[in-house]
């Protein structure tokens, strides 16, 4: 009798462990999204605005915009209230989406290859950071253009999201952080938000 109970016990735990998150799914998921993006770029009947809208829909769910906003504001994040945070996230999200599309539309019709995954190395220790994943993609054209996505795993929800994108190994978030940090050293956050919103309209 005991043996059987043990068997049941093991069986239940065996099946539950099959639900564990696998990093490999990120690559497949991104490949699907990128394939969708390439299709959208190739459709000549669509206007640029249409393409932008569709591409943003295809890639949006992957990004953790709140975290990205927090990273780029750095120490200034704690100095602003919830309303400002919400406004900033909204504005910055739009800015990133526009930039993402702008980088892609010039390579219309070219192939976007998912090269593979790697670990994210800490500059300080030289070792791989835990719960991080680097997804490498390449825009194949006259010249190869690398776009990499940095994923992190949320410890609470076990979900993987993008927290940074690099173009030719140059981090977009680091560049934005440098900009915002300099801007906010002499001007208020509301002006920054207004500025970003203004640029988004162009």
């Amino acid at each position, binding site marked *: *009798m005991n043996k*059987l109970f043990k*068997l*049941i016990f093991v*069986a*239940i735990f065996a*099946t*539950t462990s*099959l*639900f564990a*998150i696998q990093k490999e*799914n*990120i690559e*497949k*998921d991104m490949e699907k999204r990128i394939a969708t993006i390439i299709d959208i770029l190739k459709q000549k009947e669509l206007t640029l605005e249409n393409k932008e809208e569709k591409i943003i829909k295809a890639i949006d*769910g*992957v990004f*953790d*915009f*709140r*975290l990205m906003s*927090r*990273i780029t504001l*750095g120490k200034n994040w704690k100095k602003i209230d919830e309303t400002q945070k919400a406004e900033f996230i909204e504005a910055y999200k739009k800015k990133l989406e*526009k*930039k993402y599309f*702008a*980088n892609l539309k*010039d390579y219309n019709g070219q192939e976007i290859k998912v090269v593979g995954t790697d670990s994210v190395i*800490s*500059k*300080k220790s030289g070792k791989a*950071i835990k719960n991080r994943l680097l997804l490498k993609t390449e825009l194949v054209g*006259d010249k190869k253009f690398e776009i990499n996505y940095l994923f*992190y795993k*949320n*410890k*609470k*929800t*076990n*979900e*993987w*999201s993008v927290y940074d994108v690099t173009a030719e*190994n*140059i981090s977009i*978030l*680091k*560049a*934005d*952080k*440098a*900009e*915002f*940090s*300099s*801007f906010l050293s002499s001007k208020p956050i509301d002006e*920054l938000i207004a*500025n970003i919103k203004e*640029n988004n309209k*162009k």
Partner: protein
Amino acid sequence: MRNIVLFIFSLFLFTACSTKQVNNTNETKTQIKTETTQVVQSDDEEFDDFEEEFEEEVQQNDFDPLEGYNRVMTTFNDYVYLNVLDPIASGYKYVVPTPVRTGVSNVFDNLLFPVRFSNNLLQLKFANATEELGRFVVNSIWGIAGIMDPAKTELGWEEHDEDFGQTLGYWGVGEGFHVVLPILGPSNLRDMVGLVGDSYVSPLNSTGQSDLPYKLRTNAVETAATFTLRQVNQFSFTTGQYKNLTKDSVDLYPLLKSVYNQRRENQIKE
């Protein structure tokens, strides 16, 4: 009793199967956050990891004695890029076919072999230096004075772009402080020294022509003309990129500084 237990056990198996299937299709959805569940408070603890990853940028760039001058020069360069260099490069691109421009670029690259070769040696990258030497010989002969790049297309020998600024960085020389050069754009104290060092070795100017027999230019005017041609030709391959990068900027100077520093760091590392 035993039968009941077996029955319950088999029930468990079946429910496990069904949830496994559902979960597999949902796995990709739940793994990657959806828009609607986005507003989850990032833990302060979790954020500390990121703070470390992104903090160093700010600390490194704190020492900026020439900020005033740099900002003015950035504005000046921005104007020149957008209103002078870009139109000229676009016009040049329109007139000169891509294979010709590629050929011109290849010729220049080939001529700058001494710079790459010497700097690879100085960084003790002997394998790379050898490959550079091979490239130079193959491209000069079979590539018809460097117009083509058979070393890469036929033999797979990649270019190993090193300059004296990278050499200094490789050996631990810090960047010093940021300096924005007219037309050339962002640089820093170490890389400026690098530019001077490279100009001594490069055949595309007249510096040190009494020591080095392979100098191709004999005076400043020729050097300037050659430099301009190379810049315009190079820029013709990336028209629109500068505008893309900078048009939505809220503060251009720190943006370009960050991009430049990140690029240099990557170049020094490889």
